[in-house]
């Protein structure tokens, strides 16, 4: 099949970017989307042009590296499918496809379709953990966990940190990502001791990183390759309110200590 690509090219964060068009005439519908880009890049290279930079690693939908907005949808048209799992058969022959990077102030562009998602790491640093130094754990069966909660926690934990939620959100909000981690730990007994300081601290960092605010559009969930549920956002809001009421006074110092 033949296709035409309109790709956002930007040499570096500092420089201005623009759309470039490329034709790919030798595309097989069994190719994955990234394999199609490989082929285009091979050609560009042999033509002495600069190949299109894009993030990828596992190519099986689990590492969360790949991050391309394809025809106005993060990860492309197919539900619950990352860009690396998308196949060309999802596009008609002769299709014209637009490729853009995740667009968010908190995700500065590194090059072409590659963005800097380190803001997510900093949100986790603010409290996305259980403070249990190696060696201090009790036996795994010492804390029985209701299967339903274990499953809900697993649903939330399935997040691959790709950032499609931010990319899809009209407000560039990171509520779905942040709430997924907070929910996972809030649903488990291990997460209880730090539950309240965690939610205050992670939400504060989320704000500081410059993500937008959630107005409950639900686009994030629709774009999420792991269909992380909006219920996590509600759960996070609930926890945040309880935490703010409980420790309104201590909140300042809590976030301090977790941030330093």
């Amino acid at each position, binding site marked *: 099949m033949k296709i035409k690509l309109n790709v956002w090219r930007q040499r*570096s964060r500092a420089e201005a970017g623009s759309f470039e068009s490329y034709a790919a005439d030798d595309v097989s519908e069994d190719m994955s989307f990234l394999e199609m880009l490989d082929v285009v890049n091979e050609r560009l290279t042999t033509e002495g042009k600069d190949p299109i930079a894009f993030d990828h690693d596992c190519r099986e939908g689990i*590492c969360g590296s790949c991050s391309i907005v394809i025809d106005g949808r993060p990860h492309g048209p197919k539900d619950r499918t990352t860009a690396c799992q998308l196949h060309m058969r999802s596009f008609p022959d002769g299709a014209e496809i637009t490729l853009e990077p995740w667009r968010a102030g908190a995700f500065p562009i590194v090059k072409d379709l590659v963005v800097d998602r380190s803001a997510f790491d900093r949100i986790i640093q603010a409290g996305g953990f259980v403070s249990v130094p*190696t060696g201090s754990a009790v036996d*795994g069966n010492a804390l029985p966990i209701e299967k339903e909660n274990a499953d809900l926690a697993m649903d939330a934990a399935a997040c691959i940190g790709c950032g499609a939620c931010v990319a899809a959100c009209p407000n560039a909000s990171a509520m779905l990502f942040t709430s997924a981690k907070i929910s996972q730990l809030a649903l488990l007994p291990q997460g209880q001791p730090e539950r309240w300081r965690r939610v205050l601290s992670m939400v504060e960092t989320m704000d500081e990183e410059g993500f937008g605010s959630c107005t409950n559009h639900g686009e994030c969930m629709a774009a999420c390759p792991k269909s992380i549920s909006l219920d996590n956002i509600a759960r996070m809001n609930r926890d945040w309110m309880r935490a703010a009421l409980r420790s309104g006074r201590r909140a300042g110092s809590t976030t301090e200590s977790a941030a330093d």
Partner: protein
Amino acid sequence: MKLDPTIPAGPLETKWDRHQLEMKLVSPANKRKYRVIVVGTGLAGASAAATMAESGYQVSAYCFQDSPRRAHSIAAQGGINAAKNYQNDGDSVYRLFYDTIKGGDFRAREANVYRLAQTSMKIIDQCVAQGVPFAREYGGVLANRSFGGAQVSRTFYARGQTGQQLLLGAYSALQRMVGLGRVRMFARHEMLELIVVNGVARGIVTRDLVSGEVRSHVADAVVLATGGYGNVFYLSTNAKGCNTTANWRAYKHGAAFANPCFTQIHPTCIPVSGDYQSKLTLMSESLRNDGRIWVPKQQGDKRQPQTIPEDERDYYLERKYPSYGNLAPRDIASRAAKEACDSGRGVGRTGLGVYLDFASAIERLGEPVIRERYGNLFEMYERITAENPYTTPMRIFPATHYTMGGLWVDYNLMSTIPGLHVIGEANFSDHGANRLGASALMQGLADGYFILPHTIGHWLATAKLEDVTTDHPAVKAAEAAVAARTQRLLSIGGKRTAASFHRELGQIIWDECGLARNASGLKSALERLPKLREEFWHDLNVPGDGAGLNQSLERAGRVADFLELGELMCLDALKREESCGGHFRVEHQTEDGEALRDDERFCHVAAWEYAGDDRDPIRHTEPLRFDFVNLAQRSYK
């Protein structure tokens, strides 16, 4: 070069405890004076960096991905073993130890493997405490499954995402330390040189993949947790970025490379669909519990599988291995598939595939049961192939999956370069010639959480370390080497892309050093590979410059190292004139096609020493002594 495994004396059960007692300790107050570099943030690296930082060391960690959370460990699906015996089915530390030794076809060290089995239980406890959502029973207790042909249920799992959940656990511990300023994290940094000062590893040189800046980092100890080299085959189940560069730099500085030819090939992967193929996708082995593997009896039979009558099908595994049938071990199942395809009976457009048929299982159990058991796997298969496995048989083919070989380490996980420690898949230690399912995650976390943090203390407490700053001549030399190498890659100005060379390399390795190896094939590979390397350095085309993000440059550097490693693999395979585990020399097999070990001549680890670009590497051996188990011949008839 002297290979001293430094195995503690005494009975198997007490070696590790005793060793911990004998090792020198660094006092808590002094720990913060020591700097440790950890290259790699997979299960091994992240757990090690976090644990060492918790205990007080100044740690800096490096990965080439944009976040430590994306290390290749994330892709592990099946699960992680531990001798908890929660199922009360007779499991024990000793059984896990024995299964691992036997599974590795008696080519691993008893002491290391026993320590691994001992440590396995603490791993599960630690991960649970971190909030890893392992599967649970309705009673709230942890669930187990049996995996990789083990007779006990000792595998812990989190849906099909065990590696992801374990890594996110280690990653969160690491991020906690980063947040507290106890670990300095360098993401999108690639290690391109090892800094060795007077024979001791004292740092690394990295390239900032975003700015292109080449920078050196010095420390009192260096840890490599850089994963496996399966991508030498070009097509493998490994992530695209997996590479051998860090290990190869160390090798060239004198770290012995052990058993490079020990690679594992996984039988159930989705076949190649065309020459644009960039990687292969693994499907859980559990499929073999209900699927029947077959090929048409006559060659080049292009009929639709459903239309081929029973008596024209060859259920070759059931035929050859009646007792194990479709559940024959990984290496046997993989080899049988290749033979079927070589005999011209392979299926699919490329002829490189065999059927994994669920028709009879669906007949027997009904579609709902199958959907319930394998629904998500079937979905993944359909997503990739656009074929519905409920109606048409799946097509599968073997793919490189894991590399047992790696840098040689002693009982303290230290390589032959003092101060250089190697953990996880990057070292050669515990799996011998073949790894059991769900044991790699266990080993990575055992090394990182519970072994290295102690043994590295012994090194720091006993070593006499001179002061080294970044303007030490050895450091400058290392930086210069990186700059020169980068410049060389950029300035060849040929026509071929790194990927095209990589593809060609992979084909050679797969054909000659893959599932089945023989002397003549290996020799021919050893003639072709140097030529390919020649061509690479003359006709390579790397666009752009080193000043910013340049993925072609990264790729080229990795392929350059794979080209050299491939040669060492073939050499090692040629010199090991026996068959064991994943290493199958067709000259050495029992009459029913089983791997035939030669314990007289080859009951040892082969560790290769670099001797210069123009000289052949030197093969050293570490004899393997089996004082506690006796060597048995595997048979799965």
